[in-house]
């Protein structure tokens, strides 16, 4: 029988107290683990997604709202920006790729984005250096000429409605093309999985991101491709070719910007040829009255700075819960110590030294706390796993519950896995807390507690 076995026997003899106190530690550690892992996942995911999109153009307003809506598909769209600005970007020499987003519809709870086939370009990288990949099927068909026609039609229509009453349009039938228009969709991995969609499925978006009234249109969209999982909000998106988005009757009226009379799009993701051009162009673009240019990574850094402080408070609270639980363990051992004085005296009488008795009691405190820690670490990860779906819906990314989390210990020391840090920290706190009952055991008067002197 080893010294450790003696510790385990002692704990087993007080099963209920041991299990309850370990459970307290487990819940505290689970909270710490969940906060730490989720916090790290939020940071990693938001930083990655942010840096995947170097610049976003959108209407004037809140940069945060624009980024949250365009990158994470959260919140409402801040509005529309003139389509001309997209055309400028598309044709500008300093721009490598410009991707328009038209949002506002949904399909059975998943947001719909009208865009061009630029999203299948290898330079469109929602995560750094990771272009979108199709898991099955093909990209939707995008017809730039058709799109140009539709935009042209819409502009003319806008001009006509702004003319004095009685004026007529050019008599051109704007809708005659629509029957030939490709109406195709590509969906993210989660959409396909949750809705059980396969290639060829028919999709019918409704107006409004929360789902709303049906559009009255003559035909449905055909699913041509399913994207490989990205772990980003894209997994929960339905992409349709932008010309088909604009062909929806409801969008035609709402897509006109009253101030400029131009067609509106929600946002444009811009990939400059070089980072320096982004730095030069951003302030210039921001001087314009019709658009704003936002760097998602900067905006996200600001957001994380705010969230990070909340995160630290949460972590501190969770850590305090662990400390309280460990103190509870020590107090439970301490309270039982009066009943154990004879047992301690017997151990001393058969040769245990004071230090060994001290070690025995400290060992009990540490073992109970570590048992709780082991369960808590697993619980914390399982908690993240359990809420992953909810996080994906509300925060726009899929947290990896079992992603390794490395804790930095300063500039000079190598980082350690979170689990190792947690075990070490708990062991130290439990050892210190265990000193409280251990000192009582240490001071046990052997002769007095063995039997009364005769």
């Amino acid at each position, binding site marked *: 029988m080893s010294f450790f076995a003696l510790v385990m026997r002692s704990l087993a003899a007080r099963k209920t107290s041991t299990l309850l106190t370990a459970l307290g530690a487990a819940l505290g550690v689970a909270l710490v683990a969940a906060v730490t892992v989720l916090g790290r996942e939020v940071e990693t995911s938001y930083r990655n997604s942010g840096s995947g999109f170097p610049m976003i153009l959108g209407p004037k307003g809140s940069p945060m709202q624009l980024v949250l809506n365009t990158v994470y598909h959260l919140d409402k769209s801040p509005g529309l920006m003139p389509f001309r600005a997209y055309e400028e970007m598309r044709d500008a020499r300093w721009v490598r790729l410009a991707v328009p987003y038209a949002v506002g519809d949904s399909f059975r709870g998943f947001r719909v984005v009208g865009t061009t086939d630029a999203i299948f370009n290898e330079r469109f990288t929602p995560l750094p250096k990771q272009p979108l990949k199709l898991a099955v099927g093909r990209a939707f068909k995008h017809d730039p000429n058709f799109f140009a026609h539709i935009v042209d039609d819409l502009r003319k229509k806008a001009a006509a409605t702004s003319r004095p009453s009685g004026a007529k349009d050019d008599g051109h039938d704007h809708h005659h093309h629509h029957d030939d228009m490709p109406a195709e969709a590509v969906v993210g991995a989660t959409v396909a999985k949750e809705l059980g969609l396969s290639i060829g499925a028919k999709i019918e978006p409704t107006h409004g991101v929360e789902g709303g009234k049906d559009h009255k249109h003559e035909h449905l969209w055909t699913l041509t491709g399913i994207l490989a999982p990205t772990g980003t909000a894209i997994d929960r998106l339905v992409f349709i070719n932008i010309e088909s988005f604009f062909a929806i009757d409801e969008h035609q009226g709402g897509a006109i910007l009253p101030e400029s009379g131009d067609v509106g799009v929600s946002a444009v993701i811009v990939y400059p040829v070089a980072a320096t051009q982004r730095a030069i162009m951003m302030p210039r673009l921001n001087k314009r009255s019709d658009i704003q240019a936002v760097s998602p990574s900067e905006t996200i850094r600001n957001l994380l700075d705010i969230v990070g402080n909340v995160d630290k408070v949460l972590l501190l609270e969770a850590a305090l819960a662990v400390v309280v639980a460990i103190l509870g363990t020590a107090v439970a051992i301490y309270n039982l110590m009066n009943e154990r004085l004879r047992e301690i005296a017997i*151990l001393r009488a*058969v040769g245990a*030294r*004071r230090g060994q008795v001290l070690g025995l009691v400290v060992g009990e405190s540490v073992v109970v706390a570590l048992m709780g820690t082991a369960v808590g670490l697993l619980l914390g990860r399982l908690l993240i796993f359990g809420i992953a779906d909810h996080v994906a819906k509300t925060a726009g990314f899929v947290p990896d519950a079992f992603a390794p989390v490395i804790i930095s210990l300063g500039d000079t020391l190598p980082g350690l896995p979170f689990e190792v840090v947690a075990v070490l920290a708990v062991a130290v706190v439990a050892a210190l807390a265990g000193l409280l009952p251990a000192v009582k055991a240490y001071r046990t008067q052997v002769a007095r507690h*063995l*039997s009364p*002197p005769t």
Partner: protein
Amino acid sequence: MSSETGEDRTLRVKDVRKAWPRADGGRRVVLDAVSFELEAGGTLCVVGGSGSGKTTLLHILSGITAPDAGSVSLGREDLTAMSESGRDRFRARHIGYMFQTFNLVGMLSAVENVALPLVFGGASPSAAKHRAGVLLERLSMSDRADQRPAALSVGEQQRVALARAVVADPWLILADEPTASLDPRNAADALALLESEATRTGASLVIVTHDPAVRGRYARHLVIGDGS
């Protein structure tokens, strides 16, 4: 006197005094200038009435309690000159103690109880358990080795307590009222076992008793309390 190996293992007790504090603030002298020598392998029967200081004497001989004055040495080792942890270590290795109420540890099995002195003395866990198992087998207790004390009869608990006292091959065995809980027949068997284990290990034996039958078994007595 010396053991079979030639090592001096004589127990020397010289002018040992011990007093306990009284409720009125004074002190009650329980041991007053107790002196004796016990050669290796010898047996001494300590007798005296209740409260005469018999158990206190055993605590002092084992190093559990330090005397107020006087000296106790076993061979060349002076217990009264040692630190407390030194006495603890010495007790684990060289002194076996059999308590009146056995004092087995309830959360441990019989074999684990027996192995305790070896574990605290620094033996490896497997060696300690093996040696404890062999000893229990010799005491016809092998089929009860994994039982907790609560599941053992009084006689069986007594044998476990005996095994624990002799497992480390001590130089000195201290037995406090070893037959107090036993009927006369079991008492005689228990004493025979104790004596045979003491003979086997070459240990000296100090038995505290108030039982005339036990007293009658031994030639050498130390009477304390009245007329020590």
